[in-house]
């Protein structure tokens, strides 16, 4: 019973998505499929980081009248950890940039060889 909390469940989901994404990266032959797997792993890692900052029963770290405040707007008793959220915020935008960059590479590779099979790109293989 103690394992069924919101933090545990979302952590489990994030871990599963990350492992499935890495499995896809390692086993797929199609370049587009590899980039898709990377996107799935990215979402999984972000869920893991955010759920590590979750505190049971607390609200979002935005101070307004709905949040219980102590003297001097001290809200440390009623909000979740804001640091992982700040990190994930930048991570998502960088993830978009990296995905767009990989797709540009994939497009260039496709125009060079007219195929998306990763096994055909064996110039640097040893």
């Amino acid at each position, binding site marked *: 019973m103690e394992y069924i909390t919101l933090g545990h469940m979302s952590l489990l989901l994030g871990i599963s998505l990350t492992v499935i994404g890495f499995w896809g990266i390692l086993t797929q032959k199609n370049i587009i499929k590899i980039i898709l797997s990377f996107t799935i792993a990215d979402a999984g890692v972000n869920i893991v980081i955010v759920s590590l900052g979750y505190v049971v029963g607390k609200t979002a770290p935005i101070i307004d009248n709905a949040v219980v405040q102590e003297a001097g707007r001290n809200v440390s008793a009623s909000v979740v950890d804001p640091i992982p959220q700040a990190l994930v915020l930048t991570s998502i935008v960088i993830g*978009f940039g990296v995905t767009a960059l990989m797709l540009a590479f994939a497009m260039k590779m496709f125009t060079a060889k007219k195929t998306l099979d990763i096994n055909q790109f064996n110039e640097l293989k040893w």
Partner: protein
Amino acid sequence: MNREFLFIGLTIFLGLISIILAFVAIHHKKLSVAVISTSFISLFASIIFLLLAAPDVAMTEAAIGSGLTTLIFFYVLNKIKKTNA
């Protein structure tokens, strides 16, 4: 406490669908189906961020993860399809 149970239930439900969609995305033969599945995983991830009390992250993930990423994937798929035909 009741709200917490509702959130846990919703997380388990969305999580199961997400994992099934992840397998679909990796194994389906049609690339367009795989791209749409990934877009849905991002959308469900954004709902889970909201349940984890992170509205800022949820907004970013909804706009970028499930909107713009899907669009550029379809641009690449369209170009590949046109070149092959």
